[in-house]
């Protein structure tokens, strides 16, 4: 019975491990890759690898296993990218401006955003979260909160003005 509870080959336990570590792992991978899509893919790959080796990994070591696999995948992908890049440069030298819009989001900046959200007025925060996290349109938010679309836009605008100030001040 005790064995059963800790066996991650059991779908229930596997799901529990996913629910416990997936978010952290994705976060960890995001800061490595600086790309949400790759972080998501590699996170999934790591869990699939865990499932394949579920009989060899214990419940307690699952977390470090996942992060190690994630890290190894990161290294492999980066190595592969380097090879590609070398070849690319050899052929076309003028494509150095890979992406001028590339923005690095550091861990500290995310913490600042989190703090800034907490510092918003309740009304601003409500609109901000509905819009950004729940992906609702301003029109839908207006109906939900029983205010005009203008008012929603005003709160969102205010929220962004404030967040820009707060995230900047701390730097």
């Amino acid at each position, binding site marked *: 019975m005790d064995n059963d509870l800790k066996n991650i080959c059991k779908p229930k336990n596997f*799901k529990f491990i*996913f629910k416990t570590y997936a*978010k952290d792992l994705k976060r960890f991978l995001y800061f490595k890759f600086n790309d949400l899509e790759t972080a998501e893919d590699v996170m999934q790959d790591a869990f699939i690898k865990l499932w394949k080796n579920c009989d060899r990994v214990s419940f307690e070591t699952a977390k470090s296993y996942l992060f190690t696999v994630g890290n190894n995948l990161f290294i492999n992908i980066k190595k592969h990218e380097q090879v590609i890049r070398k070849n690319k440069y050899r052929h076309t030298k003028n494509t150095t401006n890979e992406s001028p819009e590339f923005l690095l989001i550091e861990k500290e*900046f995310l913490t600042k955003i989190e703090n800034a959200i907490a510092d918003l007025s309740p009304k601003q925060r409500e609109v901000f979260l509905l*819009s950004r*996290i729940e992906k609702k349109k301003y029109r839908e938010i207006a109906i939900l909160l029983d205010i005009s679309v*203008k008012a929603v836009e*005003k709160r*969102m605008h205010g929220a962004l003005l404030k967040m820009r100030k707060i995230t*900047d001040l701390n730097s």
Partner: protein
Amino acid sequence: MKIKNTNIENEFYLSQWIEGNLADTELKKLVSEDDFLAYKKLKKGIEVFCDLEQPLDTSFERILHRMDKKTKIRKLHLKWIASIAAMLLFFMGFYALINNNSVLNKSSFGEQKTIALLDNSKVILNAKSALNYSKKGWKNKREVFLNGEAFFQVEKGSTFTVKTKNGNITVLGTQFNVKSTDTFFEVICYEGKVRVVHNNKEYILNPTNSFRKINKNPIESLNYSRKKPTWTLGESTYRSVPLKYVIEDLEKQFNIQINSAKINNSSIYTGSFNHHKMDLAFKSVFDAMGLKYNKTASNIYILDN
């Protein structure tokens, strides 16, 4: 007209821009270079922050899907046997279906289903409920089996019986609501007369009367003034119901899991919640009870005092 429109939109240009309705080049004209760069970074940061905060249910689904594909190749023999067995089962099931003409109607999480029975009687099924009946004997015996909650509008005719785990309800032609789960049994009569048989005892309900038996508590009888159960209008209403059942219903409506281990889930709740907006529903139930809720992973919530 068009010019006027853009003017109005530009009043709160940041809200337009973050929604993608205002191009970067437009924003650049409105703010200083420093501001522009700061806003761009803020937008990206918000996007990343919100994505990382997002529940990962779909990721899990995709992992399952991908694992499925990978194991398929290895388990070819097993798959063959399984598919033959499945076909056999399917034909057996099909045969059984033809034979007794049993009809099963099921509603999923957060779903309501309206079912027309053979005699034009109408049944509305609430979320996660099942109703089945046999077509064959319908003419002589109007009889349905229910697990979950449903509102019945029965056409006049021979006796109509709703069978549940907790007891039977018989009527001639009327409107009534039945909710029957493992330990919860409630019948509300809206029109006509309803007879409830529970534990071999008979109870007659007149309009606005109700019969309720929760767990091992004594039988209660409350009066309702409404013409229709509120859940058919997108809102579940409760009168002095242990919180446990309200939580069960929330789970059924929104397809989530709520962990109530930390709280006393037998405290009594009176109130209602909306089926369309989960955050509002949470507010109206948990705020009213003075409870805090925390989202842990994807669709799991933990309650605390």
